[in-house]
Protein backbone atom coordinates (compact mmCIF):
# COMPACT_ATOMS: atom_id res chain seq x y z
CA UNK A 1 0.00 0.00 0.00
CA UNK A 2 1.74 3.17 -1.13
CA UNK A 3 1.06 6.57 0.35
CA UNK A 4 -0.55 9.38 -1.59
CA UNK A 5 2.75 11.22 -1.98
CA UNK A 6 4.23 8.16 -3.68
CA UNK A 7 1.32 7.74 -6.08
CA UNK A 8 3.04 9.29 -9.08
CA UNK A 9 0.33 8.11 -11.44
CA UNK A 10 -2.14 10.21 -9.48
CA UNK A 11 0.20 13.24 -9.57
CA UNK A 12 0.60 12.88 -13.30
CA UNK A 13 -3.12 12.68 -13.92
CA UNK A 14 -3.70 15.66 -11.65
CA UNK A 15 -1.21 17.86 -13.52
CA UNK A 16 -2.31 16.60 -16.94
CA UNK A 17 -5.95 17.47 -16.29
CA UNK A 18 -5.33 20.79 -14.53
CA UNK A 19 -2.87 21.77 -17.23
CA UNK A 20 -5.33 21.07 -20.01
CA UNK A 21 -8.18 22.76 -18.19
CA UNK A 22 -7.37 26.40 -19.14
CA UNK A 23 -7.00 25.37 -22.79
CA UNK A 24 -10.27 23.43 -22.61
CA UNK A 25 -12.03 26.40 -21.03
CA UNK A 26 -10.68 28.70 -23.74
CA UNK A 27 -11.93 26.35 -26.45
CA UNK A 28 -15.28 25.97 -24.70
CA UNK A 29 -15.68 29.73 -24.25
CA UNK A 30 -14.68 30.24 -27.86
CA UNK A 31 -17.25 27.70 -29.00
CA UNK A 32 -20.05 29.37 -27.05
CA UNK A 33 -18.86 32.83 -28.11
CA UNK A 34 -18.06 34.14 -24.65
CA UNK A 35 -14.45 35.20 -24.99
CA UNK A 36 -15.53 38.82 -24.56
CA UNK A 37 -15.47 41.74 -26.96
CA UNK A 38 -11.87 41.18 -28.03
CA UNK A 39 -11.26 37.40 -28.13
CA UNK A 40 -7.77 37.72 -29.64
CA UNK A 41 -6.59 39.94 -26.81
CA UNK A 42 -8.14 37.68 -24.18
CA UNK A 43 -6.66 34.47 -25.60
CA UNK A 44 -3.26 36.12 -26.02
CA UNK A 45 -3.20 37.39 -22.46
CA UNK A 46 -4.53 34.17 -20.91
CA UNK A 47 -2.16 31.82 -22.74
CA UNK A 48 0.77 34.09 -21.88
CA UNK A 49 -0.11 34.23 -18.20
CA UNK A 50 -0.69 30.46 -18.01
CA UNK A 51 2.68 29.83 -19.68
CA UNK A 52 4.40 32.00 -17.05
CA UNK A 53 2.46 30.18 -14.35
CA UNK A 54 3.75 26.78 -15.46
CA UNK A 55 7.28 28.13 -15.82
CA UNK A 56 7.24 29.29 -12.21
CA UNK A 57 5.71 25.99 -11.08
CA UNK A 58 8.51 24.08 -12.82
CA UNK A 59 11.09 26.34 -11.18
CA UNK A 60 9.46 25.85 -7.78
CA UNK A 61 10.00 22.08 -7.84
CA UNK A 62 13.55 22.05 -6.50
CA UNK A 63 12.98 24.52 -3.64
CA UNK A 64 9.79 22.70 -2.59
CA UNK A 65 11.57 19.37 -2.75
CA UNK A 66 14.46 20.59 -0.63
CA UNK A 67 12.46 22.67 1.84
CA UNK A 68 9.51 20.36 2.37
CA UNK A 69 10.81 17.03 1.18
CA UNK A 70 8.31 16.83 -1.63
CA UNK A 71 10.57 14.62 -3.71
CA UNK A 72 7.59 13.26 -5.62
CA UNK A 73 7.36 16.60 -7.46
CA UNK A 74 10.58 15.95 -9.34
CA UNK A 75 8.96 13.29 -11.49
CA UNK A 76 6.40 15.85 -12.68
CA UNK A 77 8.78 18.70 -13.45
CA UNK A 78 9.22 17.99 -17.15
CA UNK A 79 5.45 17.82 -17.58
CA UNK A 80 5.13 21.27 -15.96
CA UNK A 81 7.80 22.59 -18.31
CA UNK A 82 6.08 21.06 -21.33
CA UNK A 83 2.85 22.76 -20.36
CA UNK A 84 4.70 26.08 -20.15
CA UNK A 85 5.96 25.41 -23.68
CA UNK A 86 2.51 24.37 -24.88
CA UNK A 87 0.91 27.61 -23.65
CA UNK A 88 3.79 29.75 -24.89
CA UNK A 89 3.33 28.15 -28.32
CA UNK A 90 -0.42 28.87 -28.19
CA UNK A 91 0.43 32.44 -27.14
CA UNK A 92 2.79 32.84 -30.09
CA UNK A 93 0.27 31.41 -32.57
CA UNK A 94 -2.48 33.66 -31.27
CA UNK A 95 -0.19 36.62 -31.83
CA UNK A 96 0.83 35.50 -35.34
CA UNK A 97 -2.59 34.43 -36.64
CA UNK A 98 -4.89 36.57 -34.52
CA UNK A 99 -3.11 39.76 -33.61
CA UNK A 100 -1.09 40.12 -36.81
CA UNK A 101 -3.55 38.32 -39.06
CA UNK A 102 -0.72 36.15 -40.37
CA UNK A 103 0.99 39.13 -42.04
CA UNK A 104 4.60 38.03 -41.84
CA UNK A 105 5.97 41.44 -42.85
CA UNK A 106 4.36 43.18 -39.89
CA UNK A 107 5.63 40.43 -37.60
CA UNK A 108 9.18 40.93 -38.82
CA UNK A 109 8.80 44.67 -38.26
CA UNK A 110 7.46 44.02 -34.77
CA UNK A 111 10.41 41.78 -33.87
CA UNK A 112 12.86 44.35 -35.14
CA UNK A 113 11.26 47.45 -33.64
CA UNK A 114 9.27 46.44 -30.57
CA UNK A 115 11.56 45.42 -27.70
CA UNK A 116 8.81 43.54 -25.86
CA UNK A 117 8.10 41.42 -28.94
CA UNK A 118 11.83 40.84 -29.45
CA UNK A 119 12.14 39.70 -25.86
CA UNK A 120 9.09 37.45 -26.11
CA UNK A 121 10.44 35.82 -29.26
CA UNK A 122 13.88 35.30 -27.71
CA UNK A 123 12.37 33.76 -24.60
CA UNK A 124 10.29 31.43 -26.72
CA UNK A 125 13.33 30.50 -28.81
CA UNK A 126 15.09 29.48 -25.60
CA UNK A 127 12.20 27.18 -24.75
CA UNK A 128 12.47 25.20 -27.97
CA UNK A 129 15.67 23.27 -27.13
CA UNK A 130 14.27 22.59 -23.67
CA UNK A 131 11.06 21.14 -25.04
CA UNK A 132 12.97 19.08 -27.62
CA UNK A 133 15.20 17.57 -24.93
CA UNK A 134 12.45 16.85 -22.47
CA UNK A 135 12.24 13.11 -23.12
CA UNK A 136 13.80 10.43 -20.95
CA UNK A 137 15.85 9.34 -23.96
CA UNK A 138 17.33 12.81 -24.38
CA UNK A 139 18.36 12.93 -20.72
CA UNK A 140 20.24 9.69 -21.29
CA UNK A 141 21.78 10.90 -24.52
CA UNK A 142 22.97 14.23 -23.11
CA UNK A 143 23.90 12.83 -19.75
CA UNK A 144 22.13 14.11 -16.64
CA UNK A 145 24.74 16.75 -15.86
CA UNK A 146 24.73 18.40 -19.25
CA UNK A 147 20.96 18.08 -19.39
CA UNK A 148 20.60 19.94 -16.09
CA UNK A 149 22.99 22.64 -17.25
CA UNK A 150 21.01 23.12 -20.45
CA UNK A 151 17.76 23.26 -18.57
CA UNK A 152 18.94 26.11 -16.36
CA UNK A 153 17.90 28.13 -19.41
CA UNK A 154 14.45 27.91 -17.84
CA UNK A 155 15.49 30.79 -15.57
CA UNK A 156 16.43 32.89 -18.60
CA UNK A 157 13.07 32.08 -20.19
CA UNK A 158 11.18 33.03 -17.02
CA UNK A 159 13.08 36.31 -16.55
CA UNK A 160 12.51 37.19 -20.20
CA UNK A 161 8.85 36.21 -19.96
CA UNK A 162 8.14 38.31 -16.88
CA UNK A 163 9.89 41.38 -18.33
CA UNK A 164 8.01 40.82 -21.60
CA UNK A 165 4.75 40.90 -19.60
CA UNK A 166 5.74 44.00 -17.62
CA UNK A 167 6.65 45.84 -20.82
CA UNK A 168 3.24 45.51 -22.45
CA UNK A 169 1.03 46.79 -19.65
CA UNK A 170 0.19 50.48 -19.77
CA UNK A 171 0.37 51.36 -16.09
CA UNK A 172 -1.03 48.63 -13.82
CA UNK A 173 1.96 46.45 -12.89
CA UNK A 174 0.15 44.33 -10.29
CA UNK A 175 0.30 40.98 -12.08
CA UNK A 176 3.78 41.35 -13.59
CA UNK A 177 5.01 42.44 -10.15
CA UNK A 178 3.53 39.34 -8.53
CA UNK A 179 5.24 37.10 -11.07
CA UNK A 180 8.48 39.03 -10.63
CA UNK A 181 8.30 38.62 -6.85
CA UNK A 182 7.84 34.86 -7.01
CA UNK A 183 10.57 34.54 -9.61
CA UNK A 184 12.96 36.62 -7.49
CA UNK A 185 12.32 34.35 -4.51
CA UNK A 186 12.92 31.20 -6.57
CA UNK A 187 16.01 32.58 -8.22
CA UNK A 188 17.31 33.95 -4.91
CA UNK A 189 16.94 30.55 -3.30
CA UNK A 190 19.01 28.86 -5.99
CA UNK A 191 21.65 31.59 -6.11
CA UNK A 192 22.11 31.44 -2.35
CA UNK A 193 22.78 27.71 -2.69
CA UNK A 194 25.35 28.31 -5.40
CA UNK A 195 27.17 30.89 -3.27
CA UNK A 196 27.09 28.73 -0.15
CA UNK A 197 28.53 25.82 -2.09
CA UNK A 198 31.16 27.76 -3.94
Amino acid at each position, binding site marked *: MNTLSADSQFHRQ*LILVNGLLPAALLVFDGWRGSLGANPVEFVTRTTGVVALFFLLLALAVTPLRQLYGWTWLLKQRRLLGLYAFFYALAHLWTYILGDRGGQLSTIAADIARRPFITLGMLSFACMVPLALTSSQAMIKQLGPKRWRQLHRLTYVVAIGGVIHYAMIVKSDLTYPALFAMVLTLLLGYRLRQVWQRG
Partner: protein
Amino acid sequence: MDGPSDPLSPEITPEETFLNRRFFLKAGIWAGSTLATAGLYQTFKPAPAVKNTGREIGTVAEPPLPGAIAVGETPNRFEDIAGYNNFYEFSTNKSAVASRAQSLQTTPWTLQVGGLVEHPLSLSLEDILGFEAVQRIYRFRCVEGWSMVIPWVGFPLAKLLSLAVPTDQATHVAFESYYDRQQMPHSLFAGIAFPYLEGLRLDEALHPLTLMATGLYGKTLPNQNGAPVRLVVPWKYGFKSIKSVVKITLTDHQPTTTWNRANAREYGFYSNVNPTVNHPRWSQAYERRIGETDLRPTLMFNGYADQVAHLYTGMNLRQNF
Protein backbone atom coordinates in the same frame (compact mmCIF):
# COMPACT_ATOMS: atom_id res chain seq x y z
CA MET B 1 -0.79 -12.58 20.50
CA ASP B 2 -1.45 -9.02 21.32
CA GLY B 3 0.61 -6.33 19.59
CA PRO B 4 0.64 -3.53 17.06
CA SER B 5 0.91 -6.00 14.22
CA ASP B 6 -2.25 -7.72 15.26
CA PRO B 7 -4.64 -7.25 12.36
CA LEU B 8 -7.53 -7.35 14.74
CA SER B 9 -6.19 -4.54 16.89
CA PRO B 10 -8.70 -1.66 16.92
CA GLU B 11 -5.96 0.96 16.28
CA ILE B 12 -5.32 -0.37 12.83
CA THR B 13 -7.56 0.95 10.16
CA PRO B 14 -9.18 -1.86 8.23
CA GLU B 15 -8.04 -1.93 4.62
CA GLU B 16 -11.52 -1.18 3.35
CA THR B 17 -11.82 2.02 5.40
CA PHE B 18 -8.30 2.99 4.40
CA LEU B 19 -9.09 2.67 0.69
CA ASN B 20 -12.33 4.47 1.22
CA ARG B 21 -10.57 7.34 2.93
CA ARG B 22 -8.01 7.38 0.13
CA PHE B 23 -10.79 7.56 -2.41
CA PHE B 24 -12.38 10.57 -0.73
CA LEU B 25 -9.03 12.28 -0.27
CA LYS B 26 -8.28 11.87 -3.96
CA ALA B 27 -11.74 13.02 -4.95
CA GLY B 28 -11.27 16.05 -2.74
CA ILE B 29 -7.92 16.90 -4.31
CA TRP B 30 -9.42 16.48 -7.77
CA ALA B 31 -12.34 18.74 -6.98
CA GLY B 32 -10.21 21.32 -5.17
CA SER B 33 -7.49 21.56 -7.78
CA THR B 34 -9.78 21.75 -10.80
CA LEU B 35 -11.99 24.31 -9.08
CA ALA B 36 -8.91 26.37 -8.24
CA THR B 37 -7.66 26.19 -11.84
CA ALA B 38 -11.05 27.10 -13.27
CA GLY B 39 -11.40 29.86 -10.68
CA LEU B 40 -8.03 31.31 -11.61
CA TYR B 41 -9.12 31.28 -15.25
CA GLN B 42 -12.31 33.09 -14.29
CA THR B 43 -10.45 35.86 -12.44
CA PHE B 44 -8.89 36.78 -15.74
CA LYS B 45 -12.27 36.67 -17.37
CA PRO B 46 -14.84 38.32 -15.11
CA ALA B 47 -18.32 37.92 -16.54
CA PRO B 48 -19.50 41.34 -17.62
CA ALA B 49 -23.05 42.02 -16.53
CA VAL B 50 -24.31 44.33 -19.22
CA LYS B 51 -27.92 45.18 -19.84
CA ASN B 52 -29.07 48.45 -21.27
CA THR B 53 -30.93 49.77 -18.25
CA GLY B 54 -30.62 53.46 -19.08
CA ARG B 55 -33.51 55.85 -19.46
CA GLU B 56 -34.61 56.89 -22.94
CA ILE B 57 -33.23 60.19 -24.18
CA GLY B 58 -35.19 62.01 -26.87
CA THR B 59 -33.08 63.36 -29.72
CA VAL B 60 -33.72 65.99 -32.34
CA ALA B 61 -32.62 65.85 -35.97
CA GLU B 62 -29.80 68.26 -36.74
CA PRO B 63 -28.83 69.92 -40.01
CA PRO B 64 -26.45 67.79 -42.07
CA LEU B 65 -22.96 67.91 -40.54
CA PRO B 66 -20.13 66.05 -42.28
CA GLY B 67 -18.76 63.35 -39.97
CA ALA B 68 -21.74 63.40 -37.61
CA ILE B 69 -22.94 60.01 -38.80
CA ALA B 70 -20.11 57.69 -39.88
CA VAL B 71 -20.94 56.65 -43.42
CA GLY B 72 -21.03 52.94 -44.21
CA GLU B 73 -20.30 51.89 -40.63
CA THR B 74 -22.35 49.50 -38.53
CA PRO B 75 -22.42 50.33 -34.81
CA ASN B 76 -20.96 47.75 -32.46
CA ARG B 77 -23.25 45.69 -30.26
CA PHE B 78 -24.35 47.31 -27.03
CA GLU B 79 -22.84 44.48 -24.97
CA ASP B 80 -19.42 45.10 -26.54
CA ILE B 81 -19.58 48.88 -26.10
CA ALA B 82 -20.71 48.48 -22.49
CA GLY B 83 -18.67 45.36 -21.71
CA TYR B 84 -15.19 46.31 -22.88
CA ASN B 85 -14.06 49.54 -21.25
CA ASN B 86 -11.00 51.39 -20.14
CA PHE B 87 -11.94 53.13 -16.90
CA TYR B 88 -8.84 52.80 -14.71
CA GLU B 89 -10.62 54.18 -11.65
CA PHE B 90 -12.45 50.83 -11.50
CA SER B 91 -10.15 48.28 -13.12
CA THR B 92 -7.40 47.97 -15.67
CA ASN B 93 -9.11 44.82 -16.93
CA LYS B 94 -11.46 46.01 -19.66
CA SER B 95 -14.01 43.26 -19.09
CA ALA B 96 -14.08 43.84 -15.32
CA VAL B 97 -15.00 47.54 -15.51
CA ALA B 98 -18.71 47.00 -16.22
CA SER B 99 -19.47 45.21 -12.97
CA ARG B 100 -17.11 47.29 -10.81
CA ALA B 101 -18.46 50.59 -12.12
CA GLN B 102 -21.88 49.78 -10.68
CA SER B 103 -20.62 51.38 -7.46
CA LEU B 104 -20.45 54.80 -9.14
CA GLN B 105 -23.06 57.20 -7.75
CA THR B 106 -24.24 59.58 -10.46
CA THR B 107 -27.01 61.30 -8.52
CA PRO B 108 -26.65 64.01 -7.46
CA TRP B 109 -24.15 65.28 -10.01
CA THR B 110 -22.66 68.70 -10.57
CA LEU B 111 -20.74 69.79 -13.63
CA GLN B 112 -18.88 73.02 -13.11
CA VAL B 113 -17.72 75.23 -15.94
CA GLY B 114 -15.29 77.91 -14.82
CA GLY B 115 -11.91 79.49 -15.24
CA LEU B 116 -11.56 82.11 -17.94
CA VAL B 117 -15.28 82.52 -18.65
CA GLU B 118 -17.74 85.40 -18.38
CA HIS B 119 -20.46 83.24 -16.82
CA PRO B 120 -19.31 80.35 -14.63
CA LEU B 121 -21.86 77.54 -14.64
CA SER B 122 -22.86 74.91 -12.15
CA LEU B 123 -25.04 72.34 -13.85
CA SER B 124 -27.12 69.63 -12.20
CA LEU B 125 -27.86 66.30 -13.83
CA GLU B 126 -31.26 67.69 -14.87
CA ASP B 127 -29.57 70.70 -16.47
CA ILE B 128 -27.17 68.41 -18.35
CA LEU B 129 -29.93 66.12 -19.58
CA GLY B 130 -31.98 69.19 -20.42
CA PHE B 131 -29.71 70.14 -23.32
CA GLU B 132 -31.26 69.40 -26.68
CA ALA B 133 -29.70 66.05 -27.61
CA VAL B 134 -28.61 64.82 -31.01
CA GLN B 135 -27.43 61.46 -32.24
CA ARG B 136 -23.86 60.98 -33.50
CA ILE B 137 -22.39 57.77 -34.86
CA TYR B 138 -18.63 58.00 -34.42
CA ARG B 139 -15.69 55.74 -34.95
CA PHE B 140 -13.82 55.26 -31.67
CA ARG B 141 -10.13 54.33 -31.86
CA CYS B 142 -8.31 53.27 -28.70
CA VAL B 143 -4.58 53.96 -28.42
CA GLU B 144 -4.19 50.23 -27.66
CA GLY B 145 -5.07 49.34 -31.24
CA TRP B 146 -8.75 48.38 -31.15
CA SER B 147 -11.75 50.33 -32.39
CA MET B 148 -15.53 50.45 -32.30
CA VAL B 149 -18.38 52.35 -33.89
CA ILE B 150 -20.59 53.93 -31.24
CA PRO B 151 -24.01 55.57 -31.55
CA TRP B 152 -23.69 58.40 -29.03
CA VAL B 153 -26.36 60.75 -27.78
CA GLY B 154 -25.31 64.17 -26.55
CA PHE B 155 -24.77 67.83 -27.35
CA PRO B 156 -21.84 69.74 -28.83
CA LEU B 157 -19.37 71.04 -26.25
CA ALA B 158 -19.46 74.34 -28.18
CA LYS B 159 -23.04 74.80 -27.06
CA LEU B 160 -22.07 74.50 -23.41
CA LEU B 161 -19.07 76.79 -23.82
CA SER B 162 -21.20 79.39 -25.60
CA LEU B 163 -23.32 79.65 -22.44
CA ALA B 164 -20.25 80.17 -20.27
CA VAL B 165 -18.66 82.58 -22.79
CA PRO B 166 -14.87 82.06 -22.75
CA THR B 167 -12.91 85.27 -22.26
CA ASP B 168 -10.38 86.53 -24.80
CA GLN B 169 -7.53 85.13 -22.74
CA ALA B 170 -8.85 81.55 -22.91
CA THR B 171 -6.78 79.30 -25.19
CA HIS B 172 -7.36 75.80 -23.75
CA VAL B 173 -9.97 73.75 -21.97
CA ALA B 174 -9.14 71.47 -19.01
CA PHE B 175 -11.40 68.59 -17.99
CA GLU B 176 -11.56 66.66 -14.75
CA SER B 177 -13.26 63.33 -13.95
CA TYR B 178 -15.14 62.52 -10.81
CA TYR B 179 -12.96 60.76 -8.25
CA ASP B 180 -13.93 59.18 -4.97
CA ARG B 181 -11.65 56.50 -3.58
CA GLN B 182 -14.53 55.01 -1.58
CA GLN B 183 -16.45 54.30 -4.75
CA MET B 184 -13.29 53.38 -6.66
CA PRO B 185 -11.21 51.24 -4.27
CA HIS B 186 -9.36 49.49 -7.09
CA SER B 187 -8.02 52.79 -8.39
CA LEU B 188 -5.05 52.23 -6.07
CA PHE B 189 -3.75 49.56 -8.46
CA ALA B 190 -4.19 51.56 -11.65
CA GLY B 191 -0.67 52.96 -11.69
CA ILE B 192 -1.84 56.44 -12.69
CA ALA B 193 -2.81 59.41 -10.52
CA PHE B 194 -6.43 60.49 -10.07
CA PRO B 195 -8.59 62.46 -10.63
CA TYR B 196 -8.24 61.80 -14.34
CA LEU B 197 -7.39 64.95 -16.28
CA GLU B 198 -7.73 65.81 -19.93
CA GLY B 199 -7.45 68.86 -22.10
CA LEU B 200 -8.08 70.31 -25.53
CA ARG B 201 -7.10 73.43 -27.37
CA LEU B 202 -10.03 75.86 -27.43
CA ASP B 203 -10.52 75.52 -31.20
CA GLU B 204 -10.62 71.72 -30.83
CA ALA B 205 -13.16 72.07 -28.03
CA LEU B 206 -15.33 74.36 -30.16
CA HIS B 207 -15.28 72.02 -33.18
CA PRO B 208 -18.84 70.93 -34.03
CA LEU B 209 -17.87 67.24 -33.84
CA THR B 210 -16.63 67.56 -30.24
CA LEU B 211 -19.46 66.08 -28.20
CA MET B 212 -20.55 65.98 -24.58
CA ALA B 213 -22.19 62.54 -24.58
CA THR B 214 -24.98 61.74 -22.17
CA GLY B 215 -26.08 58.47 -23.70
CA LEU B 216 -25.59 55.70 -26.21
CA TYR B 217 -28.06 53.64 -28.19
CA GLY B 218 -30.74 56.17 -27.32
CA LYS B 219 -30.46 55.70 -23.56
CA THR B 220 -28.52 57.35 -20.73
CA LEU B 221 -24.89 56.24 -20.43
CA PRO B 222 -24.02 53.08 -18.52
CA ASN B 223 -21.64 53.89 -15.63
CA GLN B 224 -18.76 52.06 -17.30
CA ASN B 225 -19.04 54.31 -20.37
CA GLY B 226 -18.62 57.46 -18.30
CA ALA B 227 -22.03 58.29 -16.83
CA PRO B 228 -23.63 60.71 -16.56
CA VAL B 229 -21.70 62.91 -18.99
CA ARG B 230 -18.45 62.45 -20.87
CA LEU B 231 -16.41 64.02 -23.61
CA VAL B 232 -16.16 62.42 -27.07
CA VAL B 233 -13.50 63.64 -29.50
CA PRO B 234 -13.75 61.19 -32.41
CA TRP B 235 -10.49 62.08 -34.17
CA LYS B 236 -8.35 61.52 -31.09
CA TYR B 237 -7.35 58.34 -29.27
CA GLY B 238 -10.04 57.20 -26.86
CA PHE B 239 -8.25 58.22 -23.67
CA LYS B 240 -8.74 61.88 -24.62
CA SER B 241 -12.50 61.35 -24.36
CA ILE B 242 -12.60 61.77 -20.59
CA LYS B 243 -15.42 60.11 -18.66
CA SER B 244 -17.76 61.20 -15.87
CA VAL B 245 -16.79 64.86 -16.11
CA VAL B 246 -17.29 67.13 -13.09
CA LYS B 247 -15.17 70.11 -14.01
CA ILE B 248 -14.44 72.07 -17.17
CA THR B 249 -11.96 74.92 -16.79
CA LEU B 250 -10.98 77.43 -19.45
CA THR B 251 -7.27 78.26 -19.22
CA ASP B 252 -4.61 80.36 -20.94
CA HIS B 253 -2.10 77.50 -21.10
CA GLN B 254 -1.94 73.87 -22.15
CA PRO B 255 -3.37 71.95 -19.20
CA THR B 256 -1.89 68.88 -17.54
CA THR B 257 -3.35 65.62 -18.84
CA THR B 258 -3.22 62.27 -17.05
CA TRP B 259 -1.50 60.03 -19.59
CA ASN B 260 0.88 62.72 -20.73
CA ARG B 261 1.94 63.22 -17.12
CA ALA B 262 2.24 59.46 -16.60
CA ASN B 263 4.36 58.88 -19.71
CA ALA B 264 5.07 61.88 -21.92
CA ARG B 265 7.14 59.82 -24.36
CA GLU B 266 4.18 57.59 -25.19
CA TYR B 267 1.14 59.85 -24.84
CA GLY B 268 1.21 63.34 -26.29
CA PHE B 269 -1.13 66.19 -25.45
CA TYR B 270 -2.73 66.07 -28.89
CA SER B 271 -2.99 62.30 -29.35
CA ASN B 272 -4.69 62.64 -32.70
CA VAL B 273 -5.29 59.29 -34.37
CA ASN B 274 -2.39 59.00 -36.79
CA PRO B 275 -1.40 55.76 -38.56
CA THR B 276 2.01 57.18 -39.49
CA VAL B 277 3.14 57.93 -35.94
CA ASN B 278 3.58 54.71 -33.99
CA HIS B 279 3.25 54.28 -30.28
CA PRO B 280 6.80 53.59 -29.01
CA ARG B 281 5.76 50.04 -28.11
CA TRP B 282 3.37 49.14 -30.91
CA SER B 283 2.28 50.09 -34.41
CA GLN B 284 -0.69 52.39 -34.95
CA ALA B 285 -0.96 51.58 -38.66
CA TYR B 286 -3.68 48.98 -38.15
CA GLU B 287 -6.53 48.44 -35.76
CA ARG B 288 -8.79 45.62 -34.72
CA ARG B 289 -12.42 46.57 -35.05
CA ILE B 290 -14.22 44.84 -32.20
CA GLY B 291 -16.36 42.10 -33.71
CA GLU B 292 -14.10 41.59 -36.74
CA THR B 293 -11.28 39.13 -37.24
CA ASP B 294 -9.20 40.91 -39.87
CA LEU B 295 -7.22 44.04 -39.11
CA ARG B 296 -8.23 47.33 -40.71
CA PRO B 297 -5.85 50.07 -41.73
CA THR B 298 -6.16 53.01 -39.34
CA LEU B 299 -7.33 56.24 -40.99
CA MET B 300 -5.69 59.64 -40.56
CA PHE B 301 -7.54 61.57 -37.85
CA ASN B 302 -9.64 58.40 -37.51
CA GLY B 303 -11.33 59.19 -40.81
CA TYR B 304 -12.22 62.79 -39.84
CA ALA B 305 -9.37 64.44 -41.76
CA ASP B 306 -11.74 66.43 -43.99
CA GLN B 307 -13.38 67.92 -40.92
CA VAL B 308 -10.41 68.54 -38.62
CA ALA B 309 -7.12 68.57 -40.57
CA HIS B 310 -7.31 72.37 -40.89
CA LEU B 311 -6.90 72.68 -37.12
CA TYR B 312 -3.35 71.41 -37.48
CA THR B 313 -2.06 73.04 -40.66
CA GLY B 314 1.62 73.84 -40.42
CA MET B 315 2.08 71.69 -37.32
CA ASN B 316 4.61 68.88 -37.20
CA LEU B 317 2.36 66.01 -36.17
CA ARG B 318 5.33 63.76 -35.44
CA GLN B 319 6.53 66.18 -32.78
CA ASN B 320 3.05 67.19 -31.62
CA PHE B 321 1.78 63.63 -31.37
